[in-house]
């Protein structure tokens, strides 16, 4: 509430020192769209807020031989405006772009969405399905971590004291590969996902799926990677039978709870519906 300090360091080292010195009482401001809500609601009372937007390494989207490095302060709107990124990873971009309104899009970041560790985070399933990694910087230098290892439970992440995510990296991918993310919300915008499903897949020359990853959001304390659904896709032409198997596997893998947004039965069913629809979209994109 009060007594909060605000810092806007210009370098990674400065930021790491500020975070480490705060000993857990610091919060990072990237897009701020979760942070400010939590501040206003009195859910958090940090001693210091560290704005990382002045750190140049957190800026911009860098393409390198088909791979992408997305700075931690890059907003969803900036991602949507990047034609190459949107073409290569439409599912990742649509996940990021589904976070909130146009106004939120001007601020919210994927890195923030990841570290905030909501089970319903829209950008995370597609990142995990993509096999994305991130660069974590901290007092002991930097390390590359699979994004899947960042959230550890609702509101909990694996970052140590003084650490923050500097960027998120998407690998280069072969031809005939694409991804898709779908979520179920009661309205058409502005809601938290009741269920999210991301599918990333690779087809060979004649349309047979050679690699796949299916990840569900909002149906467990963390995202759920559904190996059986991926197995149902691999070797198939992503036809109706395969999609039905994806749906069945996704529903079987879901471990949701009843809460104000949805029921166990609903989430379980819709996890299957969305996984199979996302697979169909990803395959269609990969074919074209």
């Amino acid at each position: 509430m009060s007594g909060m300090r605000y810092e806007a360091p210009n370098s990674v080292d400065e930021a790491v020192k500020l975070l480490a010195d705060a000993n857990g009482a610091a919060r990072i401001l990237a897009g701020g769209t979760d942070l400010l809500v939590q501040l206003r609601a009195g859910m958090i009372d940090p001693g210091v807020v560290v704005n990382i937007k002045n750190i140049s390494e957190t800026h911009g989207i860098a393409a390198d031989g088909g791979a992408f490095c997305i700075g931690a302060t890059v907003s969803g709107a900036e991602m949507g405006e990047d034609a190459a990124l949107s073409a290569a990873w439409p599912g990742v971009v649509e996940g990021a772009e589904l976070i909130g309104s146009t106004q939120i899009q001007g601020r919210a970041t994927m890195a923030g969405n990841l570290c905030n560790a909501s089970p319903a985070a829209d950008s995370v399933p597609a990142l995990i399905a993509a096999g994305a990694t991130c660069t974590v910087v901290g007092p002991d230098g930097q390390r590359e971590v699979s994004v899947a290892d960042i959230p550890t439970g609702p509101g909990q992440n694996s970052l140590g004291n003084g650490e923050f995510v500097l960027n998120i990296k998407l690998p280069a991918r072969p031809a005939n590969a694409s991804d898709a993310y779908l979520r179920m919300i009661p309205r058409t915008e502005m809601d938290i996902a009741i269920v999210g499903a991301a599918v990333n897949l690779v087809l060979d020359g004649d349309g047979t799926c050679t690699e796949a990853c299916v990840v569900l959001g909002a149906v467990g304390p963390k995202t759920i990677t559904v190996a059986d659904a991926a197995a149902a896709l691999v070797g198939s032409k992503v036809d109706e039978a395969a999609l039905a198997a994806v749906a069945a596997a996704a529903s079987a893998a879901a471990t949701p709870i009843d809460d104000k947004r949805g029921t166990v039965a609903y989430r379980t069913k819709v996890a299957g519906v969305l996984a199979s629809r996302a697979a169909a979209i990803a395959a269609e994109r990969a074919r074209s």
Partner: protein
Amino acid sequence: MAKHHITTTINGEEAEYLCEPQETLLDVLRDEVGLTGTKEGCSSGDCGACSVMLDGRLVCSCLVLGVEAQGKTVETIEGMADGEVLHPLQQKFLEEAALQCGYCTPGVLIAAKALLDINNDPTETEVRYWLAGNLCRCTGYDKIIRAVMDTAADMRGA
């Protein structure tokens, strides 16, 4: 706690204010700068009444700290008209009765202008999704959407 001294540009003019670290840009605009045209509806980014432009991006000013405006440009509803001359969107909203209570109107106008600045030929669906973060409880959105589309058509014709 010491207040931060912030220098920024608001509606084209240099502005300075003192603010506490936890104050939002919305608080600062309304309470420190005296620009009360930007409205608070929820303070959680869910209603869009506090929409402003920050360095050319549409944002909810309730989700921006006042200190973050240092060295940036802020555009609010008070800067939308050119002196006595209303922006075409403002004029169209009056002509087509695209407001009832008027409370969401500043935010809607700022958001609509942000759209037309980058796309002067949006479809109805594009306008509806662009404005999905601006809640209006009075109009059912019909006249708002029409006014934005009609302004775009005028701007293309002009």
